[in-house]
């Protein structure tokens, strides 16, 4: 029988064990925080195979939704986990703040070779490595094949065709795609594609410019679509937008590879009607593609099990078993940063939602078109909030370019207050 006292004792015990942080015990299990879909099956697979090096997973909310704050606070309080998943945009902050450890010396030559230069570029700052890339997801276009066919609209391959397609569908009261005021990362993917860059490095100094030629090119294009009222303006993940997708009022969704499975679980009714295409290009002769968010794994500076942590991380990024386990959850569609895992991923991924289409064959071609010339800033959550705030004012007359200018003006003081050397290009 459960008495009040035994319950209290149990609660007290868990409290105690919770306080005696396992990160401090070199023989304790690895503590792992992740918000990535399908991580629980990955950890189960690891634990089944490595009972002597157990990993304890805590599923946390994604970075902006609270995960970043949780990690910062834990690091300050001295009870951060050993291993954390994070978005590439958040890595500079945690590297700068000393939360993510410099793991350059832990990265083996083999691991380095298996993931490729572009993937490592998002994890390397000032020549030091602070994270191990998990995926490198090019932007794709998911679209309703039935709607496009019904209205005689071809799948656009260039942004000019995309605009024409949007006009044709709008005439029939359908939006080709949505514009998300809370989607700085999608807009950043468009900027990456044009070759624009918001943050760069010149010697020992940050160089910031949110309105370079590439950024303005993307801003003007999307502003033009907005001005013509060709876009369904609603926040990403909002009920309003999901309902429009489910009802076929919005016919496509631009998202990186990871969003392929996410869409399937968001609008289950669309099974079989959706297809995947490459995102449109500016110039088919000179193709390039951006990404809206890649994931990495970092080891915290305070971890006393860094080598074990590295074994686990390396396994997640390069082992076919790990990607098979991740996709077996049915909730993930990661494109591994390690090309050698694509076969295993393609075998495991269920393609029923997309009419049996080969996601990984298509994504692999786009993977090659990504470049490493993009860098995120040291306080992206704050920068993103500024951008989102500006974009949310679009119905009140703000433009995308203005939102970028304002966000830059609000980002520079943040960087100066950290003592960083920063100039505008």
């Amino acid at each position: 029988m459960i008495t009040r006292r035994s319950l209290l004792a149990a609660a007290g015990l868990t409290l105690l064990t919770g306080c005696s942080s396992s990160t401090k015990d070199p023989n304790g299990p690895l503590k792992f925080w992740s918000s990535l879909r399908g991580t629980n099956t990955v950890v189960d697979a690891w634990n089944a195979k490595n009972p002597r090096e157990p990993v304890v997973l805590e599923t946390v909310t994604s970075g902006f939704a609270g995960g970043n704050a949780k990690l910062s606070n834990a690091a300050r309080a001295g009870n951060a986990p050993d291993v954390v998943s994070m978005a590439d945009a958040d890595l500079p902050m945690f590297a700068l703040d000393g939360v993510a450890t410099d793991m350059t010396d832990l990265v083996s030559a083999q691991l380095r070779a298996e993931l490729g230069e572009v993937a490592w570029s998002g994890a390397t700052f000032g020549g030091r490595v602070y994270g191990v890339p998990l995926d490198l997801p090019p932007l794709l276009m998911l679209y309703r094949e039935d709607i496009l066919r019904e209205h005689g609209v071809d799948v656009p391959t260039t942004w000019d065709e995309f605009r024409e397609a949007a006009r044709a569908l709008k005439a029939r009261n359908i939006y080709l795609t949505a514009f998300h005021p809370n989607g700085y990362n999608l807009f950043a993917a468009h900027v990456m594609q044009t070759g624009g860059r918001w943050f760069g490095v010149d010697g020992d100094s940050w160089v910031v410019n949110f309105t370079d030629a590439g950024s303005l090119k993307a801003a003007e294009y999307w502003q033009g679509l907005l001005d013509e009222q060709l876009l369904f303006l609603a926040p990403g993940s909002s009920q309003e937008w999901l309902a429009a997708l489910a009802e076929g009022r919005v016919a496509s969704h631009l998202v990186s590879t990871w969003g392929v499975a996410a869409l399937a679980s968001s609008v289950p009714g669309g099974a079989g009607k959706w297809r995947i295409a490459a995102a449109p290009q500016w110039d088919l002769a000179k193709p390039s593609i951006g990404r809206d968010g890649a994931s990495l794994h970092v080891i915290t500076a305070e971890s006393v099990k860094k080598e074990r942590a590295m074994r686990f991380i390396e396994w997640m990024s390069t082992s076919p078993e790990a990607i098979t386990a991740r996709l077996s959850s049915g909730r993930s569609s990661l494109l591994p940063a390690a090309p050698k895992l694509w076969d295993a991923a393609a075998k495991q991924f269920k393609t029923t939602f997309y009419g049996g289409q080969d996601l990984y064959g298509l994504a692999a071609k786009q993977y090659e078109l990504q470049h490493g010339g993009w860098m995120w800033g040291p306080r992206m959550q704050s920068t993103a909030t500024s951008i989102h705030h500006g974009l949310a004012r679009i119905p009140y007359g703000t433009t995308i370019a203005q939102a970028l200018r304002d966000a830059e003006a609000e980002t520079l003081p943040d960087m100066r207050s950290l003592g960083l050397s920063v100039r505008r290009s």
Partner: protein
Amino acid sequence: MIRQRSAIGLLLGPFVALLAVVFLAPTLYAIYLSFFARTHTGLGFGNGQTAFVGLRNYGVVLTDPSFLQGVGVTLLYSAVFIPLVIVGALSLALLFDSGVVRLRQISQTILFVPHAVPGIIATVIWLYLYTPGISPVIDLMKGLDLEVDFLGLEMVVPSLVNIALWSGLGYTTVIFFAALRAVPQEVIEAAAIDGAGPVRSAVTIKVPLIRGTIVTVLIFTVIGALQLFTEPMLLSKVTPLIGPRFTPNMYIYDAAFARNNHSLASAASVLLLIVCCLLSFAVTRGAARGGKA
């Protein structure tokens, strides 16, 4: 003598202790934090350390366009709210005092009740009344062919002022009314005998006699207006026109909890404290000088 001293100590002790713990210590810590910050060099990777940074954080706050905009918004809000609440409350208090209003106690209670509603609840109530689609007020006005977007570009500040007035007017009125009750009856009677009507006696006799109270209320109102936080914080959830750094206090909150930059937040807090002290001083001085003249 000793007993008197120990009585003073005993009576002041709790106040001093609380003042030290909840005001002086945090203030000193904030000042410390604003000068000693986490700082980097160059790109900043791998070289973070806590060091004396001088006035750097103050410079950053004062050149941050979002902070300056917040100051602008607060000034605009104050310029609308402060005259409205002071003149409004004073007029109401004088009306109650003159006996023109019947059912004085009930009217006073009705006016005062909103003050008993916590600021957050009050804002939620108004949020409901401001939101198109669910607000009965907006539906009613639509029936009269009036279209108002309470959360639109021009209406954001008036909508905030309205919430603050609703909560604060009754409270301020009661303070003024209490002060008016303390005005000696003989003075009013003497004025009446000399031929002063109710308006004249209100403006030239009563108001000057409660000047001290008016100044005190003015100081509190000014400080309250500068610390605008709860109402816009809640409204920011429903209108993109109110951003996370809409007022200086929201800027401080954002710096500390969204940007994780406690030194920047401390510098902004210290600046706000200085401005509040200066303004209080100015109001008191201005009133004292006016009193002499």
